[in-house]
């Protein structure tokens, strides 16, 4: 038997396609033939890439793959960014996977933790997005890639609509190494609105019986934003955005940052910050940004992915969003992550756990979530050379030595001191340091953002400027000072806190000009989804799970 | 919730026990009862449910129509309401059409009857739970239950499933809090039914007495306090009345 290892790649590819034979008409196959075709084009030992990030999923192909068994397919080295679907989990339960390299396991994080415990989840490594895409070009080049597109034309050209996301990052390394690219599409048409992937790079196409799965991941209902989150948002706006004149930035997915977006047209406007901050964004088309965009705050938005319901709005605001000639929204995950790494003043995000050194993680013994893209942006790009005001100002505070870059990206962790149910956010030691997790990850502790990269921690208690700390002990004291009534916070020493406050390393809300009693949801540009629809002049179509009228 | 229990054999038997041979005047259509019968020397209007059926929009309307007819054609005739219903079936179309309003309409018709001098007496014959009991049976002047009837909010197992409180905990508490217990007897302790009629009783005679003694004064809170099953309700109501009169 010829295996992938012994044959020339190109010859081997021809053989695989030959095996498909009459099951396909040219490139096109019918849905019911897909399991058999997968059986014929995938060989033991293959590196198989399944497209699927936290939003867009080649779910039809994944579901068909999961109908196969170990006797059909085995020893697969699975590479994919997000383990999201029950079908993905099935592949492991059936013992078809010999190794997996991935980034993130959001909805399946509990199932993944269980599989790890049962030793049925042989992890190579958990990556960040760009790290994994980079490895597709180095040592994890896919032999077969199963991808998803919105539309194909009769030649097999693909249109990716608003959700380009990671498709190019998968297709290019696969197609240019004699791998097989198999695309599921929602529709086959005569003429595409635009060509995102040329037919030349596509081997097989199936029109899926149902449209690909798209998760509305970035929609945050303003109704769920709390007064405390508004308080934190006000503190961040004054103590960081205003102070450093942050012009280019990324926002994580969360209610904290949604509160900031909704404060720009109200509180931000009152502070006279329009035009001074928040002009250039690397962020998905967040519905909560609509009021700021409509109020003229935003120059441009580049995104790693689309967002369900924002299609008409983004098309209408092509002056702000990147769009194709046809007017439809364009995203690119790899390029977006790259932009978020090198070209922004600030990354701000939340985390489930932060230790006394500022390391953060979303992993616990019972939930292995992984990383996604946050660490690509929430880190110091020491390869950066271009200056901006924020970068230089933050750099100066960090008092760089002769061997360090002069600037620093602002990497901000914004968290409440407690999670729901009085679970403390601040801990002495991360759950992620658990021995069994470290063992499964070959000795690596799954830290989301390293403490050394973090410049500020914002809580409802105030701001800790970690970049300005001069020692590990000082950094720990600064974190305790804003850790409130958590066990970590209760250990703070009054005098130490007062000293840090005198030096501006710790700032309470009043120190940055925020009165906590002012913090109220009524400051938000809108308090519900309906308001976002109104701000968009009816162009935003919220998914029906968000419609409460 | 459970499927309606089918007790086809017993419906006519129950009607016969209550109304003797005059039960022939009661029609059963899709488990909804409407008609007229005799109790003692007097004529009564009979309406209600059987077979543990669900009450939907149409059933509520048929019951309401019967009450209206009784008001128009048989002034002051006592109305006997029989209850054997598992409640309303959870149904989206029924909700969309406003099932609550259909029930509210049925209650309005009964209220009109009361104001026009009809006595209202309920006998819970089978299941008397949830919305089905609220939408007519519990609205009577006086409410009675056969001891075989399943009366109450819901059985402890169901309560446990919804509240996530272990059934054993609820079971134990129900010893001192009859409100948590399911059945005609604990419901009577709360004042929710005037009396429970046993199999040995002369039901027809009881019904005669019930109709004769019915008044439109709602006495349930008083009964609940007297019987010790609902210790707080009456005093709190009185307190509200006293404080608001100040």
């Amino acid at each position, binding site marked *: 038997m010829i295996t992938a290892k012994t044959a020339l790649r190109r010859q081997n590819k021809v053989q695989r396609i030959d095996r498909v034979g009459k099951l396909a008409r040219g490139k096109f196959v019918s849905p019911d033939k897909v399991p058999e075709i997968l059986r014929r084009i995938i060989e033991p030992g293959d590196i198989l890439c399944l497209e699927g990030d936290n939003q867009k999923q080649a779910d039809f192909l994944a579901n068909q793959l999961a109908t196969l068994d170990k006797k059909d397919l085995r020893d697969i080295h699975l590479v994919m960014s997000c383990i999201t679907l029950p079908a993905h989990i099935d592949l492991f339960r059936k013992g078809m996977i010999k190794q997996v390299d991935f980034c993130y396991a959001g909805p399946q994080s509990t199932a993944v933790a269980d599989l790890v415990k049962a030793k049925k989840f042989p992890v190579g490594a958990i990556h960040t997005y760009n790290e994994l895409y980079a490895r597709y070009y180095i040592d994890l080049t896919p032999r077969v890639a199963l991808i998803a597109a919105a539309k194909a034309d009769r030649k097999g050209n693909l249109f990716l609509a608003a959700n380009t996301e990671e498709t190019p990052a998968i297709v290019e390394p696969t197609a240019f190494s004699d791998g097989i690219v198999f695309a599921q599409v929602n529709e086959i048409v005569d003429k595409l609105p635009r060509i995102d992937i040329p037919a030349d790079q596509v081997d097989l196409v199936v029109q899926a019986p149902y449209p690909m799965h798209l998760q509305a991941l970035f929609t945050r209902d303003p109704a769920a934003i709390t007064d405390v989150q508004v308080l934190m948002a006000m503190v961040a706006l004054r103590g960081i955005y205003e102070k450093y004149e942050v012009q280019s930035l990324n926002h994580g997915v969360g209610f904290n940052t949604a509160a900031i977006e909704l404060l720009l047209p109200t509180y931000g406007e009152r502070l006279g910050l329009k035009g001074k901050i928040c002009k250039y964004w690397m962020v998905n088309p967040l519905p909560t940004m609509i009021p700021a965009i409509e109020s003229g705050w935003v120059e441009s938005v580049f995104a790693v992915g689309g967002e369900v319901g924002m299609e008409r709005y983004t098309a209408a605001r092509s002056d702000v969003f990147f769009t194709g000639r046809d007017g439809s929204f364009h995203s690119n995950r790899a390029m977006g992550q790259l932009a978020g790494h090198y070209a922004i003043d600030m990354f701000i995000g939340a985390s489930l756990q932060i230790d006394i050194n500022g390391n953060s993680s979303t992993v616990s013994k019972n939930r292995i979530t992984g990383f996604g893209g946050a660490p690509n942006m929430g880190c110091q790009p020491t390869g950066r050379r271009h200056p901006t005001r924020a970068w230089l100002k933050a750099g100066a505070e960090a008092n760089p030595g002769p061997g360090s870059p002069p600037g620093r990206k602002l990497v901000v962790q914004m968290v409440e001191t407690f999670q729901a149910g009085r679970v403390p956010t601040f801990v002495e030691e991360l759950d992620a340091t658990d021995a069994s997790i470290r063992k499964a990850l070959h000795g690596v502790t799954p830290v989301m953002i390293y403490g050394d990269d973090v410049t500020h921690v914002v809580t409802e208690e105030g701001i800790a400027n970690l970049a300005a700390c001069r020692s590990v002990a000082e950094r720990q004291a600064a974190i305790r000072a804003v850790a409130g009534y958590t066990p970590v916070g209760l250990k703070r020493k009054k005098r130490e806190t007062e000293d840090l406050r005198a030096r501006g390393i710790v700032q309470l809300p009043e120190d940055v000009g925020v009165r906590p009693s002012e913090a109220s949801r009524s400051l938000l540009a809108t308090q519900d989804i309906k308001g976002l629809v109104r701000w968009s002049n009816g162009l935003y179509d919220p998914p029906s799970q968000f419609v409460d*009228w | 919730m459970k499927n309606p229990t089918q007790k086809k054999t017993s419906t006519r038997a129950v009607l016969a026990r209550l109304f003797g041979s005059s039960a022939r005047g009661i029609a059963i259509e899709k488990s909804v009862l409407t008609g007229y019968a005799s109790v003692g020397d007097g004529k009564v209007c009979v309406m209600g449910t059987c077979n543990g059926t669900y009450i939907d929009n149409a059933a509520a309307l048929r019951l309401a129509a019967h009450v209206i007819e009784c008001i128009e054609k048989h002034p002051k005739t006592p109305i006997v309401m029989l209850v054997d219903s598992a409640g309303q079936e959870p149904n989206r179309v029924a*909700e969309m059409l406003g099932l609550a309003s259909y029930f509210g309409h049925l209650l309005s018709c009964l209220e009109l009857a009361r104001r026009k001098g009809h006595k209202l007496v309920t006998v819970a014959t089978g299941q008397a739970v949830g919305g089905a009991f609220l939408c007519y049976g519990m609205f009577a002047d006086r409410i009675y239950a056969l001891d075989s009837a399943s009366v109450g*909010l819901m059985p402890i197992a169901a*309560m446990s499933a919804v509240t996530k409180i272990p059934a054993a905990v609820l079971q134990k508490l129900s010893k001192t809090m009859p409100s948590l217990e399911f059945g005609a007897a604990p419901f009577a302790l709360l004042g929710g039914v005037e009396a429970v009629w046993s199999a040995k009783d002369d039901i027809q005679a009881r019904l005669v007495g019930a109709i004769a003694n019915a008044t439109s004064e709602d006495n349930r809170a008083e009964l609940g306090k007297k019987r010790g099953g609902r210790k707080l*309700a009456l005093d709190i109501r009185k307190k509200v*009345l006293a404080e608001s009169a100040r």
Partner: protein
Amino acid sequence: MSGVLFHEQTARQRIAALADPGSFVELLPPPERITSPYLAQLGIPVSFDDGIVIGHAKIGGKKVYLAAQVGQFVGGAVGEIHGAKLTGLFKAAARDKTPCILLVESGGVRLHEGSAGEIAIAETMRAIFECRALKVPTIAVIATDIGAYGGIGILSTCCDYRVMTEHGRLGISGPIVIEKWMGKKAYNSADRALVWKTSGGKTKYLLGDADALVHDAPEAVRDAIAKFIGKSRAVSLGSVKARQKELEKRLKKFGTTNDPNAVWKGMGVRNVEAASLASGPEFAALAKRGK
């Protein structure tokens, strides 16, 4: 408008916003600590008002009795104390011939207290009709997503008038219960657009089960209440016969459709999309409410 959303307010804030300034007098106020012995026994936090604030106040100078349920507290559900406060209030209203307004926010009977809550709802229904027989106006305001469900849904339909906002929901069985019963295909409870088209204020207004559809603002709710406290709706042979006809017609016309849009169209909404976006009186203007 003040910009304050009615559905965002707490029960106490709602009362403060509706009543003439300083006019509200609470009955059985929190310092009396009349809390549920059932919840205490079950190890569930109690509340000093047991989830309902009651009292009297003036609205536009006219005395009213007011009750506001606290939806956050065990879903606003009715236990023995909560229910007794409610019954007492309507009885006081009947005694004093003073209008009674219930700001509804309740899933119905508080299961943790078993049948006591169910009987209390039945008793309150009797008290409501006592008011109505005396031409004392009773008004239910349903303006939040917790809405009026279960026994409280039925109770709300016993009042003279219902004031709703588009966020309010009125029904008996909630979407999760129905989904469990009929399956996700028949009713996906996460499809909130469908949930609101099924039980939301707009649909209820179109069908005539809500008497006013107002903006989600305390001033708008107050204006609607002010309009209704001067009138009442007698339960008469004529009125129940008319209602019987109306409900029969409704069942015949829409009883076989699954599609709430068909109901909207059938009740005179020409442009469903535009109507979906419109609120309160603007919605009412877009829909010539069918008979």
